[in-house]
């Protein structure tokens, strides 16, 4: 690790100021950033911790649904979102291990937008709103490919607002080593229709499976998927699974998520 300065502002405004400095980078749970720095693959000159900002912490119901502060650790979401949005709580409770869940945060996860991360699927399937220090971004506009988001320089996530679906479930198939999602599917049924978001599988990161959404909006049952198939083109192929395998998982897990959602 190279040397760096450290700042821990207590307001969003101060954080924005600190992040404007040359070479400054946001630090949330540090579960991705710190290992990267240890390997000397990132060398920020100032680390700006977002974990001291009260408004960025915690889970509560509010306008538009469930508000989750960007610096809220997964373990807190797993516990406190349960009464309001059990599928989201389940997802949070299945990330990594207890240590990772105690430190890692939703803001860090969706800012990083790892193609195998769990949260992006919930944000996208829920049609959530990503709130930043500058604006509100619809989930459909926010995720822009591998490790790429709509966030601009100096912009950071402050919270995420989740509309609450009637039914929802997340089913994750573990990558055998990292236990991130080799493929994960989040299905959310709203009065207006069903949204299906897939993580871990797509070459361009999290995506919605439109065909399944149409079929499930008409008939919310696993059997509604039987005639569908997923095109392996555009799927990730790596050491742990071919594109064809992932395409199969997308379909299998979507069916299981529908069943789990009840």
């Amino acid at each position, binding site marked *: 690790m190279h040397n760096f300065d450290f700042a821990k502002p207590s307001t969003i405004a101060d954080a924005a100021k600190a992040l404007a400095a040359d070479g400054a980078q946001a630090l949330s749970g540090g579960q991705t950033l710190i290992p990267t720095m240890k390997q*000397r693959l990132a060398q920020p000159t100032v680390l700006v911790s977002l974990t001291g900002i009260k408004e960025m912490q915690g889970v509560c119901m509010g306008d538009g649904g469930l508000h989750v502060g960007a610096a809220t650790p997964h373990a807190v979401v797993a516990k406190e979102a349960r009464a309001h949005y059990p599928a989201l709580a389940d997802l949070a409770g299945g990330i990594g291990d207890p240590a990772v869940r105690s430190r890692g945060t939703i803001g860090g996860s969706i800012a990083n937008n790892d193609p195998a991360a769990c949260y992006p699927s919930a944000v996208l399937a829920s049609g959530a709103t990503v709130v930043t220090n500058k604006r509100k971004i619809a989930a459909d506009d926010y995720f822009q490919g591998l490790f790429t988001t709509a966030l601009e320089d100096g912009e950071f996530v402050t919270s995420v607002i989740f509309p609450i679906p009637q039914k929802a479930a997340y089913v994750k*198939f573990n990558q*055998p*080593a990292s236990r991130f999602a080799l493929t994960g599917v989040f299905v959310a049924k709203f009065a207006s229709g069903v949204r299906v978001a897939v993580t871990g599988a797509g070459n361009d990161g999290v995506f919605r499976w439109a065909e399944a959404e149409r079929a499930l909006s008409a008939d919310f049952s696993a059997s509604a998927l039987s005639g569908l198939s997923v095109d392996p083109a555009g799927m990730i192929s790596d*050491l*742990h*699974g071919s594109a064809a395998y992932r395409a199969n*998982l997308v379909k299998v897990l979507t069916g299981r998520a529908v069943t789990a959602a009840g």
Partner: protein
Amino acid sequence: MPKDTGIGASMKRREDVRFLTGRGVYTDDLALHGQTYAVFVRSTVAHGRIKSIDTSKAAAMPGVLAVFTGEDFKDVGGNPAGWLINSRDGTPMREPKRPVLAHGKVRHVGDAYAAVVAETYAQAKDAAEQLAADSVIEELPAIIDMKAAVADPSNRVHDEIPDNLCFDWGWIEDNRAAVDAAMKAAPHVVTLELVNNRLVPNAMEPRASIGEYNPGTGDYKLTTTSQNPHLTRLLVAAFVLGIPENKLTVVAPDVGGGFGSKIYHYGEEALVLAAAKKLARPVRWTAERSESFLTDAHGRDHVTKIELGCTKDGQILAIRTETLANVGAYLSNFSTATPTFLHGTLMAGPYKVPHVYVNVKTVFTNTAPVDAYRGAGRPEATFSLERVIDKMCRELNLDPFEVRRKNLLTPDQFPYTTPVGLVYDTGNYHATLDKAMQIADVAGFEKRAAESKKRGKLRGMGLSTWIEACGIAPSHLVGVLGSRVGLYDAATVRVNATGNISVMTGAHSHGQGHETVFAQIVAEKLGIPESSVEIVHGDTSKIPFGMGSYGSRSLAVCGTAMAKAVDKIIAKGKKIAAHMLEASEGDITFENGKFQVAGTDKAKTFGEIAFSAYVPHNYPLETLEPGLEETAFYDPANFTYPAGAYICEVEVDPDTGKVDVVAFHCADDFGNVMNPMVVEGQVHGGVGQGIGQALCEFTAYDENGQLLTGSYMDYPMPRAEDVPFYNVDYSCQTPCTHNPLGVKGCGEAGAIGSPPAVVNAVIDALHRGGHTHVTHIDMPVSPSRVWSAING
């Protein structure tokens, strides 16, 4: 009533008090006055020519004390291979020099070609980064695939070795023609090509070493993560640095797992010693996890074709194998023994097979060195054999249990000379098979399979009847086989004046539980409490000699040396007692800690005798030396041959290909059992590693020799959720006939016997699910591989 102390008691492990309360002392825990930090500069290319290394900038950086390159060690010795293997044509193996730091060429990603020593770790790291930037290495085409390596004579890992072949070994070469003829005449021949996947050992504690030098005395000290400090001392002193053995102390304090990878001497150990001498300050190094992945000796990595000739009703007539074994870029210390004498000699298994021939070609590649890893050669032999037998059962529609029964040796056939050079002393393989079938409730399987089916799962059952040769090793035998060392062991039993005892053993405990089990044995033999016995290990300045712990040898070999030293103590005690009790030595008995004149109540306690030995006021000083300390060296007459039967049950999810091991049953014969709880723990760990190999672990290099599975993001270690509650039985005991404790060893069994049981179960499940086109899946039998096999 189970005993609660002494031999056979499940005593809790005394070492766990310090391990579980964070009071273990590992190499990296030691803080030494004036210590400095070494960081290695490692090759980022798999194969390259070192054109230049400009050390000037790095050397001038803050805190930097010394910079080393391969040039500094070009005149010292190399790290040698411990076994000389001859090729089929009688020529000796090719043995390239393995230098302290790479010189001239780098040969695998992670190969260290320079090192920096600085006041702090961060300064050393910064300077190493600079040094890497100031090094010019011309990348050469990488040699990764073994078949390509032997096929292309122009591309060489070592410039002097034209076909990248270390040796081409035939076992037993003289039997080859007879085996070929038997195979030709066999009514049915089963052929199976398989891969035994390369594994990264992943000990919880990474390798670490501290070198010290005292310019006042000329003494060196190496504290290091070793399974065998004496061997390391021998290698460093006699072969690499040329330090007199008596000027070098090697200490291996608490060591957090090794699984083989810490048997060997590595260049980092020599470097910290050389640097300590140069600076006259302690020099320390601890591997980062990524260095462990890149540089710890890996395990397995065989590509094998096995053929089995048999009758139509499953009588095995002949076995023939051809194996390519990867040794990586350099020969690690045991690397030439592992694919040969720890593998080929086991290819008859526990069966009566008249004809067996094994061919192994050992190949250099631009990958990390490969060496013994828990089981070492024997898992590879067992996997090939148990898989091909399973395939035979499917091809001929035979019951795998009946086929084993038909071919297993029977108790009346011992001692049994195998066609591959071993003499099995004793065993009862039918008993362990019966026991396994009983504890696994084989009869109830169909019912369980039907229940699984209701849940959409395919259930399968797999069997493996395994044998190994361990208790390594009889020196006369291994000498004939090419070993350059003896493999006996030694122990000193020191009775202190107050009657308590220090036992110095050549075994090294790095998780096994020796401190508890050895104390149980000594205490029982002497009739004293365990708490009076201290087990001292891991320090060449305290221990007479020893070859360390591996090859399930600690109890069978080191433990026997210890038992013999205790016998000498008792014998001397009798002499002292005879004098004190005014009786003749022949009339003295020793039982329950008392020396007694037979048939009388005249007796002296063990404590009284010990006291008298040290305060010899009433003592036969004219004929007997005072003191009570004895040393014994023990060289075993034969290997020991643990054996057993493993039954695995899996459920396969046909939609995702995921395999769950739902039950695992072990019926083992380890001979006499000293501490059942420790034995169970060893089996649990071994089976866990075997399931890891079968279902999860693999090591992938890309065609440029980059390690793709170089972290836990991509190297799948088994976790608690991947293994079931094991059902372990060790009640079938045929005591070893040639050591006094009657013990065989249990450390590697689980890792040897389990992988084929798992894979056989998966194939069984797929066949029951109608996927009969699947005849084999290479390990790891991962979800994507199973799904592809089903749909392929």
